[in-house]
């Protein structure tokens, strides 16, 4: 509980929107009215990343999911199938195990360990991009920390957030983690090869996701068997090509 509230009412730090009292200034202090987004520092770094990606023609995707949804397996399969210039930023709290898996595909990879941090932020990603110097034009995959809560709030400068949900998880996750499904442009339903063995209603999952985000696109695939991968390749190729074309036009 916050014990620092100045209003002198129980639970007053949670008081509602409209004020019926003045915030009186003590002697020697003054009040400053400002309108400033609390996330504006992260958003400024994200803007800088986005500008850099646009200038260079780097199509960046921010991949978010729960731990264990198969993000890294999907990424390995994607890189092997895509045949476009690609680079990867790997976010994990600890270890470089995922980066090692990506490195074996032969593409450049930069590991970020967030330590106790539960998400990547735009500042970390900016430094990782400097170190990585991804080939341009190309695709940059940013694999976020496995967490469906915190990464929703932190813009990294990506072109799209892609949320990955596997059929071994609950079909109601879009409702439970609404912020993330609201922020994403594409939902990938992974591990569809396991559908005969699990109680997961794909139609209901999509309906829940569209309650949160009516415009969200949906792809169903299995990173292990390769089923549905071609539609995902097409999704990336089409958007990456349009992104690079816009970048080149802007550059004259």
């Amino acid at each position, binding site marked *: 509980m916050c014990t*620092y509230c100045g209003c002198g009412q129980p639970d007053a730090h*949670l008081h509602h*929107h409209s004020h019926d009292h003045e915030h009186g200034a003590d002697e020697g202090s003054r009040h400053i*009215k400002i309108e400033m987004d*609390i996330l504006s520092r992260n958003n400024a770094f994200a803007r800088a990343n986005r500008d850099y990606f646009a200038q260079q023609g780097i199509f960046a995707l921010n991949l978010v999911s729960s731990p264990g949804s198969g993000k890294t397996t999907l990424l390995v399969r994607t890189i092997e199938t895509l045949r476009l210039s690609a680079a990867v930023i790997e976010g994990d709290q600890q270890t470089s195990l995922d980066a090692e898996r990506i490195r074996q595909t032969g593409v450049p990879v930069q590991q970020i360990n967030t330590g106790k941090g539960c998400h990547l932020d735009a500042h970390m990603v900016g430094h990782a991009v400097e170190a990585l110097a991804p080939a341009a034009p190309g695709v940059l995959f940013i694999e976020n920390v496995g967490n469906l809560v*915190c990464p929703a709030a932190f813009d990294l400068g990506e072109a799209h957030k892609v949320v990955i949900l596997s059929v071994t998880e609950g079909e109601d996750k879009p409702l439970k983690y609404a912020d993330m499904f609201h922020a994403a442009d594409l939902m990938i339903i992974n591990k569809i090869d396991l559908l005969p063995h699990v109680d997961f209603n794909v139609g209901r999952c999509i309906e829940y996701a569209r309650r949160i985000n009516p415009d969200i696109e949906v792809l169903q695939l299995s990173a292990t068997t390769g089923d549905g991968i071609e539609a995902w390749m097409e999704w990336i190729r089409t958007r990456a090509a349009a992104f690079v074309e816009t970048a080149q036009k802007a550059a004259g």
Partner: protein
Amino acid sequence: MHELSVCTGLVELLEEQAEVQGFNRVKALWVEIGQLSCIEPEALCFSFESAARDSVAEGAALNIEQAPGQAECLECRASFEALERYAQCPECGSFRLNILGGEELRIKELEVI
């Protein structure tokens, strides 16, 4: 617990403002947190105290105003207060909503010395 990193960013903003606006210490601040934002007010209060340590905002009173979620139905255009992102239109039952308010994460006012 992204509230802690949100607070770290908030304290950095206050440090910046101290230079720009020429003050030494923040005694109190008023922030607006939308009900549909990703921030839990209690967790924000808890994190702020530790994030503010050894900064211009050490010991500052953090006052949180909650902005209600406001939605407009994309089907029947009814406006209503939305308590959740998956709220249902009370008029026609649709889930297709346009969120008009409640996503705010804003600093509104500072009391400084």
